[in-house]
């Protein structure tokens, strides 16, 4: 078992022949991900990285049976690419692109709600199921196989957490980068739900940051439904109010979306919250009863 992607996933790459798409598709293939082709409008019929290029996602699905896509399309066209994927029947749409206008995402998310699909991101590092499929831009070698699932708004902080988990003597099932934008496809709560339901995942790491209320909602859900230990960290305790900290969604708007408030709520809901980002791995090992 695993979550969202595994060795049987048939993956296509939207923005396949561009610089980012080419580099990361190559890395994904090297990792062993089952990349079956890609889409670049106008380049249909060509071959790229030994795989077929299609003009449309519809063609790619028809020819390859693809069920997962990863989107590297530039921000101006990314919302369109998301809607195209949903329309063509793709089940898991992973969007790496950073900088999509909010108005475009409001429309795209509303549009895809009519389809049986799940959007991950945008502005995220993607999803990796250790030793099976890397559908993202993360360095794969850090994610040694094990029983810990990770949900995170941040890229490098996910790598940091995975590395600490491995050094603490544990490993990873699936790591889900949900993205740092104000509007994202899969929320913290939804990603936690997926990992709670996965029999191979025995513990969960939830990494959030300032802005919005996704962590509070996930915490409330965990309090009622959680069956596995959850370790949490919120980045941005020291961030000033009203300033955007890199991620478009990382901005303190009021009293409830500060790191302090989120951590308080998470603790009240039984999550093992660490104040130091250096203690994520050791805390997970401690609650799992593993000696590093």
């Amino acid at each position, binding site marked *: 078992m695993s979550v969202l992607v595994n060795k049987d996933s048939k993956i296509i790459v939207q923005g396949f022949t561009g610089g980012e798409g080419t580099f990361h598709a190559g*890395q994904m293939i090297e990792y062993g991900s089952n990349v079956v082709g890609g889409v670049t409008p106008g380049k249909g019929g060509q071959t790229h990285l030994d795989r077929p290029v299609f003009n449309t996602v519809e063609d790619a699905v028809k020819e390859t049976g693809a069920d997962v896509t990863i989107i590297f399309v530039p*921000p*101006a066209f990314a919302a369109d690419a998301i809607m195209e994927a949903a329309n063509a029947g793709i089940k898991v749409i992973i969007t790496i692109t950073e*900088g*999509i*206008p*909010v*108005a*475009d995402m*409001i*429309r795209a*998310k*509303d549009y895809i709600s009519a389809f049986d699909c799940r959007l991950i991101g945008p502005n995220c590092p993607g999803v990796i199921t250790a030793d099976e499929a890397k559908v993202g*831009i*993360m*360095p794969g*070698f*850090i994610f040694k196989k094990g029983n810990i699932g990770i949900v*995170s*708004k*941040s*890229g*490098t*902080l*996910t*790598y*940091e957490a995975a*590395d*600490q988990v491995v050094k603490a003597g544990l490993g990873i099932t699936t790591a889900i980068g949900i993205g*740092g934008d*104000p*509007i994202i496809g899969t929320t913290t709560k939804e990603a936690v739900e997926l990992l709670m339901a996965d029999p191979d995942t025995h513990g969960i790491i939830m*990494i959030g*940051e*300032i*802005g*919005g*209320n996704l962590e509070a909602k996930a915490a409330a859900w965990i309090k009622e439904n959680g069956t596995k230990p959850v370790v949490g*960290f919120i*980045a*941005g*305790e*020291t*961030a*000033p109010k009203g*300033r955007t*900290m*890199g*991620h*478009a*969604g*990382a901005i303190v708007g009021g009293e409830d979306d500060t*790191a302090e408030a989120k951590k308080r709520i998470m603790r009240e809901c039984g999550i093992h919250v660490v*104040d*130091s*980002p*250096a*203690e994520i791995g050791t805390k997970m090992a401690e609650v799992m009863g593993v000696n590093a």
Partner: protein
Amino acid sequence: MNLHEYQGKSILESFGVAIQRGVVVDNAEEAVAKAKELSANTGTEWFVVKAQIHAGGRGKGIVTETQSNGVVLAKGIDHVEEKVKGILGGHLVTAQTNEQGKKVNKVLIAEDVYYPGESEPSEFYMSVLLDRESEQNIIMYSTEGGMDIETVAEETPHLIFKEAVDPRVGLQGFQARRIAFNLGLSGQAFKQMTKFVYALYSAYEGCDASMFEINPVLKTSDDKIIAVDSKVTLDDNALFRHKDYAAMRDVTEEDPTEVEAGEAGLNYVNLDGNVGCMVNGAGLAMATMDIIKLSGGNPANFLDVGGTADAERVEKAFRIILKDPNVKAILVNIFGGIVRCDRVAQGIVDAYKNMGEIPVPIIVRLQGTNAEEAKKLIDESGLNVHSAVLLQEAADLVSKVLK
């Protein structure tokens, strides 16, 4: 991107939103002639002179040099020049600025819209923004106009109303009517308010705004509905399709170091601590700031160098961090994945040598691909650089150098 009041109003007007009209001047000499033109177009005899800065609380704010308020009334054309001189070129200190205040480079001379008439003028509050929870835009409004909305939310929350807009169908007629009714309007003023709300929302969508705040929206004594002030923030990510709005950016309103960093492709936010930091990735950068605090320091900045950390970029980042005289140490925290740590380490060594002596201790934490080789490279460089692999080691080194 934040706009000045006069810029926001020009966008609103282009979408058919009724505004308090005015003229912008950047020198006192042309103020009277421009004010006369405004009189000719609007019939106004009194004028409101408003400082154009990116900060709220201008009306109660004080210009350091003259003790004038940031928004003043000129009761007649003869007073315009004097009032403009009291504001223009001075430093306006408000509740939202620091104690140095903000230099006023432009003033807006606006028509007086509080003239007497058939009915009493009344002020409302209206804003448009994204509600992250419902993932819809909402129009937030209140009968309590002209006041700080946070105070209203605290003291009389029942006087704040919200109207959510379904992205599929847009703002509907019944919603605009509900807003006008809830604001207690009837007759001509009611009709004008529904038109105002429609135009305002279409402006919000049309210019890809991320926030509109109109405070106050005024019902005049002859039942017109107009925007007397405008606070407009545009979605930076959508500026690629609004070149004309992008050109409205006023960099003099921004922190000069942040502007310089932005031009170099670095995401930098200036803070007031004593430990600078340079990190790849926004989440890890925030986490690094937090660990600086836990180590007994305070972060002097947020800085995301992005995916590449070559010598040129690292040098630029060092130079930007070191512009802040409060910086007593710098923590570099790079999690190398696709980027190899030894390459980053070489970049740091090259940048360091290129800059000559760096006056503060540097702690470099490189983790990920080739982390051990990177540590060796730094340890053998002979430079005043402390190296670490684990995040906790880096934190301990910060504590150590601050002692």
